[in-house]
């Protein structure tokens, strides 16, 4: 199946467990571990045959409204897709152009693709990294540069 590539001005949102983000002095900080691809031994059956190759997320501009409305729609779409999203989790919004730029800096061709399926039509993926090429420095750049907004799930409607 062919997927469409998202433009540099567009955004994707990733579900982040409470174990990988914190609110410090009113500022929501996502830790680099939230953007790490999992090795196959860290995955659960039936997805544990090979290392993770894509970071699962949702395409923000698929929905209309302001950013918070769009992110909330993404949350609902993720729930429909079977994902459990706790009230303490966060949703991290990334700019596609900045994601690509972070990759270029580390010689990794990162791209965001729209990968709709029957359960979640806004589903997207951050592709191009591998378990071997995801250096700490690259992951740090992503969280420091490409993450442009963070929403606490419990604060969304």
């Amino acid at each position, binding site marked *: 199946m062919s997927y469409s590539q998202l433009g540099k001005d567009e955004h994707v949102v990733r579900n982040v467990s409470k174990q990988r*983000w914190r609110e410090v002095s009113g500022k929501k900080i996502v830790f680099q571990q939230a953007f790490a691809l999992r090795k196959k031994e860290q995955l659960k059956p039936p997805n544990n045959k090979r290392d993770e190759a894509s970071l699962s997320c949702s395409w923000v501009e698929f929905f209309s409204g302001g950013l918070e409305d769009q992110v909330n729609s993404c949350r609902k779409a993720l729930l429909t897709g079977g994902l459990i999203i706790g009230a303490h989790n966060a949703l991290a919004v990334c700019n596609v152009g900045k994601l690509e730029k972070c990759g270029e800096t580390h010689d990794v061709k990162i791209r965001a693709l729209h990968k709709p399926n029957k359960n979640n039509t806004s589903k997207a993926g951050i592709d191009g990294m591998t378990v071997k090429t995801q250096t700490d420095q690259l992951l740090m750049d992503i969280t420091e540069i490409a993450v442009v907004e963070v929403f606490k799930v419990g604060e969304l409607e």
Partner: protein
Amino acid sequence: MALTALVKDDNGSTDGMRSYSQTNSALKDSEIIQSVGTKSFSTNAQNNAQFEPTNVTEVRSFKNLSELKTLTSLLAMHLSRETRSIIFSEIDYLLDPNDFDISEDSLISPESFQSYLRFLTYYPSVCPGNLGVAFSGDLFAVWLEEDGDNEKLLNIEFLPEDHVKCSFSNKKETKLEEAFSYVGPMKRLEKTLAPYSLMDFRPYVI
């Protein structure tokens, strides 16, 4: 550089950041034994003592939590009461059996946790930091310092056998000014962090 970290207050609130001050009031052995024996590990854990796990995930996270607190008690003589309280509060939050998502959350590796405890005894002037868990189950701690538009973030992931994976970034407004990462023995951290004025990482010889 005084590293600070977010810690929860008595009401469990995570608002605001406060500095951590090191005290040397170690736990008495009798307190540890009583604490472990009654499962009354901490204020938050008192709720856990009454908590009855109902499914496999809850049992696993509850057992993991108990194991980590028992490991802490073995090193309690080298940790201040305040440090121990912060550690327990952090792991209570990370492994809360009532709020544990098996698809996204990870149990904490006891080997990684032991490295973290040894880190705290080796660098006693450093506050425990905000803790998190990588997908691998390795524990990591994060420290943040904000000075106007400057933001310094230090992230140390604890690997088994006293090794660490450390990343540091210094951001001014939205621009990344400097960054580095280090993987290796914990004891070389001080030398690695020295050029960045992170000298709260002074070694402590037991």
